[in-house]
């Protein structure tokens, strides 16, 4: 039997004819560009890909791709995408959202798509601010962020997208950053390969309203001390000389330096496939300045997808009745 071969696609094949309208210097350009590179190597026909988005700057992304796209309402993209997968499970469906979209208006829809394990690739562009609405505090704004709605600095406790996704029983949870293009490609490819709901938080710089908020994670001179790159089965080390690491003291994580009685045996080993998300949750809570922040895959486990569970459930119980029988119901009678 001949194997159907797909025409080779290039990143440019995924460009639409629309002019990209993000602000100069926006992190979204980098994400779009890496995304096209990844899409080109997925071996999925372009017509089977759909990008579903909500509102905000991130929500415009589908217009710049030549795949199918649906630009929905504030926060509802996960629900739209779930319906789309129900209608046609063969499609590869991506959800593009932002911190305002996914966590203000759409938190309900996000957590339910994750817990159902719908086979979606959910990309949350987190810039910790409302951009397209022109600069208001978002649910991820870190304390002290000055915006039009937090003139004296934001004082509400921010949500942590990775912690939320883990609590919502997501089966794939990862974080990457707009300017680290190789790392982003790697994470996006893993998300695309995951069967079930894949959640990726992408730190994304908003040049206009929140510039430099992730500088600690992008500045080459310091990022070795402020970021841990998660690698499955490897010790959680960081630092220019990779001589610092994380260890557990009771339930508390500790950043320690090797030596003076601290050996590699003390350092936590990353396990993205752990059946319980306890370690992943602990890692999701690490923030500067006392801890490095984690980039990479926090959790990647297999659980039946929503579609698989639907199919299984359909086979249980009584088989479906013929439609004619259904129409006639349990009790019917003939009048001659």
């Amino acid at each position: 039997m001949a194997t159907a071969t797909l025409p080779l696609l290039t990143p440019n094949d995924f460009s639409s004819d629309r002019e990209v309208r993000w602000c100069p210097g926006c992190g979204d350009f980098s994400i779009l560009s890496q995304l096209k590179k990844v899409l080109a190597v997925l071996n999925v026909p372009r017509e089977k890909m759909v990008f579903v988005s909500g509102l905000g700057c991130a929500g415009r992304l589908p217009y710049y791709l030549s795949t199918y796209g649906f630009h929905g309402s504030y926060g509802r993209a996960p629900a739209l995408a779930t319906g789309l997968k129900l209608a046609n499970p063969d499609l590869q469906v991506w959800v593009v959202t932002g911190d305002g979209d996914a966590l203000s208006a759409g938190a309900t829809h996000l957590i339910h798509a994750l817990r159902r394990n719908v086979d979606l690739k959910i990309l949350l562009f987190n810039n910790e601010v409302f951009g397209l609405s022109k600069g208001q505090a978002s649910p991820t704004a870190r304390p002290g962020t000055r915006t039009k709605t937090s003139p004296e600095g934001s004082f509400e406790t921010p949500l942590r997208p990775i912690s939320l996704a883990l609590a919502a029983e997501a089966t794939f949870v990862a974080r990457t950053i707009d300017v680290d293009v190789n790392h982003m490609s790697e994470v996006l490819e893993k998300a695309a390969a995951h069967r079930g709901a894949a959640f990726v938080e992408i730190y994304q710089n908003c040049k206009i309203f929140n510039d430099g908020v992730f500088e600690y994670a992008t500045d080459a001179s310091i990022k070795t001390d402020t970021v841990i790159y998660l690698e499955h089965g490897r010790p959680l080390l960081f630092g220019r000389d990779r001589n610092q690491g994380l260890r557990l003291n009771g339930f508390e994580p500790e950043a320690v330096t090797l030596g003076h009685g601290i050996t590699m045996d003390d350092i936590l080993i990353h396990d993205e496939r752990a059946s319980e998300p306890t370690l992943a949750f602990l890692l999701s809570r690490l923030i500067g300045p006392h801890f490095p922040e984690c980039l990479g895959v926090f959790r990647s486990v297999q659980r039946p997808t929503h579609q698989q569970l639907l199919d299984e459930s359909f086979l249980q119980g009584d088989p479906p009745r013929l439609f004619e029988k259904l129409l006639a119901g349990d009790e019917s009678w003939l009048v001659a």
Partner: protein
Amino acid sequence: MATHERRVARETPRKTAVRPTAASKPAGAIEERDAVVIRFAGDAGDGMQLVGTQFTMASAAHGNLVCTLPDPPAEIRAPVGALAGVSGFQVHFSSHAIHTPGDRLDALLAMNPAALKANLPDLEPGALLIVNTDTFLPDELHAAGYASNPLQDGLLDSYRLLAAPMDQLNREAVAKVKLIARETGRCKSFFALGLALWLFDRPLDATLRWIRDTYAKNPVMIEATTRSLNAGYQRSAALRTPAVQVRVAKAESEPGRYRQVSGAEALTLGLLAAAHRTGLPLVFAGFPLAPASEILHQLFEMKQPNVKVIQAEDDLAALNLALGASFGGALGVTATTGPGFSLQSEALGLAVMSELPCVVIDVQRAGPSTGIPSKAEQADLLLALHGRHGECPLIVLAMATPSDGFAIALEAARLAIRCMTPVIVLADAYVTGGAETWRVPTLDELPAIDVRHAKPSAGKTFQPYGRDEHLARPWAIPGTPGLEHRTGGMEKEAGTGNVSYNPLNHEEMVQTRARKIDLAVDTIPPLEVNGPPQGDLLVLGWGSTYGAIAAAVERCQRKGMSVAAAHLRHLSPLPKNTGDVLKRYRKVLVPELNAGQLSKVLRDAFLVDVVSLSKVQGRPFLVREIEQKIEELLRNA
């Protein structure tokens, strides 16, 4: 209740008492009637919904036409014996066509004092009253608010009382079966059912079949409930007091297969028929909100291979799920009510903008806000027509009777697909919870629904917002090579579908979306009139008031009055001849279960000064309420 109200003419003319009439006649006598309205009432735990459903089934199977109205309490289990916990189920069964579950009761079965107290005002003098005397004890009487025992104080003297110690008789019936107290209590409803089945000369077979199916895994309960049922059936024959059997002859019907169908079942079957007829997958998303959740339950119950049903996280998610499915090439449907329908306004706007076919069923309930969740109202009409930001026209239909749910669901699917638009179907608990006899259509009787998925054409750039002769845009399904496009909530450039802020394009698109809905009028039937084609008075209704209006107008016509009735199933767009029909009558009466919403629409559209008859009590119109208004208008004509 004022006594004069009790003497109002009945809905249907009746041959009174052919054979022995009076209460004093011996058991075994049979009285013939054209129609009977009976209500079963008891505590929430007394199984009245079950008794009512089974009694209806037996009546329908016997060949009567039936129309029912369940009236369950809002609380799952109110305190035992409390008025708030009274559960009712009304059945109107007849040998000729009937339109409503009936205004007044010919018979009442009351399982306790609270059920008697709550329902006695609706009982006709001289009507049959069946009472479970075992519950008329001091505590229960007190809970119902009776100062003295109505069985002894003369309150019930004007009724044909059949007093039976049902607890005791039932206990005797199941004495030889090993049951726990709760199961014995459950059997009591079967005793009451048996009694009612005998009194109205219904066969037991349908109920016995149901018992065997329901308790297939519990032979003890089969034995016990069968004994109770039989005991009720046989014991009633031996009861001393006026055990006159009442018989309602079979109705003459067109040949065919018949069943009884509730509005929720009919809607569900209609949706499934649309999927069956078109071959489209059906995706139904619903959030549990009474009374709309009954449709969600039915879809889970009637599982079919090309149908997917999902319980959504909220009603807004439900419509987004449906809309996402429609984008994917399925027929996306949701059913909601009350606050859920308000939530969906946002997604309806998206559906109008993205021009995708989906169906929203709104089972209107008494509002605003949580309102009275279990009660029916028609107060969402203006919300359905206009309740979205921006110029946002869509198609609005309303189902007239329980069985009409089947046709209206098919019609909604047809129009949604043909016009590429969301369609709202307005219903209420009165029609979705009610049931009636229905001739089951054969598969080749189902209407044709034309589905045209877009196909790529070589050399041409695909125009996702191009238009066909109905001004519908193409339905291009993801997965189709060459038709990749983006849709969504932003204004589209005509043709290309690209995002456009151009002011003139926006105006053109606003007009095109409106014209598309207006054009749908060419495919919908004209408004039909029952009665004189012109004259003094037209009664125009929509939705669930159909039955009460039809019955009232027919009664007045029989009395020689010049009055006609017409009913709107399409509310947007209105049938083409609506304005002409209205202008042919000197007066137009519009009865509605709201503060006059259709009246506003008609005045606005046709400059006709219609007379509004408004009722906002969470209850349907009584036939006589409409009849009185007709008489009043014709008197002053």
